[in-house]
């Protein structure tokens, strides 16, 4: 049985630290080229199809801007 | 029927604390007030009332334990003597800034530095004018007897909670050590959590319940506008205290032409000196401030028109005399007689100062200790 995941990011609250990106085992997320209202490059799902919903990114996020969803398929 | 027993001033403080329903005492030994902690440790009130007694590792820790306990809305107190109070001063500033109620007893000894273990009144500036950083005051009560040492504990807690502010009982080594008969205060049970909330509001940090927002005890506000508003609020609280809580005692002032202003032990000695001077036909009265903050400026001011001169007596090099001066405003000559280093003013010396003033022969060089005059 496989799992699929997805994340929701409060883009405006992301400070662009990038700690989540190196914690992602499936290389799902990346830092955007665009900046948010605070001038930070925010994180986003660059490859949504790879997300397993492992929650690693959310766990290490110091600003708790990530919510994680997972389904079994 | 009220109980009357022979007690040291320091013991009276300890017993009064238990009887008035104090929740916690946190202190550190220092002469001449260690009997407060010793008496409490001996009586072990925890088994009867649940009152906590803890010897802290330092005065710094003790005053911060007070902050923690007071921040929970509990009736907490500490005691120390001058060098220890210096160490507590940071904490007192935080307690004033966080608007917490607590009681601090300062049984003064001589300074500066390690100074002496003998009695003094040289912490007046430190206690009455704030002492620590920032614009704050502590309500300050100055006992002149062992009975007042007893009575002021309960009064201090009442004032502390009424105004959410630290209250200092400013005694000296003599009052702390001397023995007198004392009528003990009635026994009050400690407040329950519900009573604290009912009497004083639900502001303390005791665990956030669903029916209220979280309570935060802090003296920090980084916003300049809000910080100034807070300072204005503090100052209006002090103004309210000045309107409501001034206490003093005046003796033989009706016909007096000269006035002695003194507090605590100096007032007791001055009372004897007043009798000696009256025996020689000098019409002299005494005013004894009981609250040093708020200070009875107006009470002194009202007496000024009938006086030819006013003498301040202190066990310091001249501290309260500055407040007397604010009341006198140069209208009449102001004299000062002070002893320091553990030396005590004597009734005879004070009487001869008074006599020399009344006869126009005053010369500060003629008296021991510290003597000054400001002519009008």
């Amino acid at each position, binding site marked *: 049985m496989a799992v699929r995941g997805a994340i929701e990011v409060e883009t405006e609250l992301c400070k662009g630290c990038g700690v989540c990106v190196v914690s992602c085992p499936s290389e799902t997320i990346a830092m955007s080229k665009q900046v948010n209202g605070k001038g930070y490059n925010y994180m986003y799902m660059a490859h949504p199809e790879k997300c397993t919903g492992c929650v690693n990114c959310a766990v*290490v996020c110091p600003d708790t801007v990530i919510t994680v*969803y997972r389904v079994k398929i | 029927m009220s109980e009357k027993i022979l007690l040291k001033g320091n013991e009276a403080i300890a017993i009064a604390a238990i009887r008035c329903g104090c929740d916690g005492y946190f202190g550190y030994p220092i002469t001449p007030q260690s009997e407060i902690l010793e008496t409490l440790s001996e009586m072990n009130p925890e088994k009867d009332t649940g009152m906590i007694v803890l010897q802290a590792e330092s005065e710094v820790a003790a005053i*911060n*334990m007070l902050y*923690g306990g007071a921040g929970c809305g509990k009736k907490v107190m500490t005691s120390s003597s001058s060098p220890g109070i210096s160490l507590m001063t940071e904490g007192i500033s935080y307690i004033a800034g966080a608007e917490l109620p607590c009681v601090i007893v300062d049984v003064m000894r001589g300074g500066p530095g390690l100074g002496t273990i003998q009695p003094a009144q040289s912490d007046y500036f430190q206690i009455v004018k704030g002492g620590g950083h920032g614009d704050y005051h502590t309500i300050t009560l100055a006992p002149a007897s062992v009975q007042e040492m007893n009575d002021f504990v309960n009064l201090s807690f009442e004032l502390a909670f009424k105004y959410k502010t630290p209250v200092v009982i400013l005694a000296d080594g003599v009052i702390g050590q001397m023995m007198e008969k004392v009528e003990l205060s009635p026994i009050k049970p400690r407040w329950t959590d519900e009573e604290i909330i009912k009497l004083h509001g639900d502001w303390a940090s005791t665990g956030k319940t669903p029916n209220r927002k979280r309570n935060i005890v*802090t003296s920090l506000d980084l916003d300049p506008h809000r910080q100034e508003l807070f300072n204005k609020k503090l100052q209006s609280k002090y103004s309210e205290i000045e309107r409501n809580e001034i206490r003093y005692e005046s003796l033989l002032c009706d016909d007096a032409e000269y006035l002695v202003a003194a507090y605590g032990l100096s007032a007791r000695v001055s009372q004897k000196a007043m009798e000696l001077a009256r025996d020689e036909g000098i019409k002299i009265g005494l005013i004894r401030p009981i609250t040093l903050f708020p200070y009875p400026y107006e009470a002194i001011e009202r007496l000024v028109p009938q006086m030819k001169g006013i003498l301040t007596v202190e066990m310091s090099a001249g501290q309260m005399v500055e407040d007397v001066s604010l009341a006198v405003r140069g209208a009449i000559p102001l004299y000062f007689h002070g002893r320091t280093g553990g030396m005590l003013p004597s009734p005879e010396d004070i009487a001869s100062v008074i006599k020399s003033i009344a006869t126009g022969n005053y010369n500060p060089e003629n008296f021991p200790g510290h003597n000054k005059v400001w002519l009008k």
Partner: protein
Amino acid sequence: MDITDIIKPENKVYGKSRLLLDKVMHFCPGCSHGTIHKIIAETIDELDIQEQVIGISPVGCAVLAYDYIDIDWQEAAHGRAPALATAIKRLYPDKYVFTYQGDGDLASIGTGEIIHTCNRGDNVTIIFVNNAIYGMTGGQMAPTTLEGMKTATTPKGRSYISSGFPMKITEMLAILPGVVYATRQSVDTPAAERKAKKAVIKAFKCQKLKKGTSFIEFVSTCSSGWKMTPTEANTWMRENMFPVFPPGDVKDETGF
């Protein structure tokens, strides 16, 4: 499968703790404080003890912790949080009391208070955030600053000849009989974060069982103070801080 089919309330597996308030934390990007705050909020929520917890915030970067976690707080003078904790716990033995202190607060100005609270074995939890630098005041030397490490007050690097050695406060406190649990954790990886959370839960359980003082050091980063990116700081911490401050339990006499 479309993302919108996955992002549904019933599929939620991780989100913000209800005890974390909406106020955006003032910490710099990547700061360990945020993650540690999150662990504390989640722990209090999971143990369902919000109504019994009193937190004590320090002077330093975490002074405003009370703005972020929805519990009752007291803000202490610099270094004095353990004295507050002692009094609160003595007056309310059944409440949960924790201090949250940085390395300047706990290991420098507050050494007296922390040693004696631990020595009395007060049933409180101490959260000690060690990032080897004074963050709030602009990156000066801390007692835990590494030898050779450059700070605003050791511009040529800390020299033990003039400034002594990085202080291993957790080991120092662990020898006190009053301390039942002393551990060193980090939050630089998901695995470390999960382990650290277990440690915090264990520390709070020590209070419930009245076991004695529980002490958790978080070896942490200060990317602004260290002048690195957050991810560089994590790597630097692993390579340079861990040899001096190795993660793991220093003492565990909890028996559970």
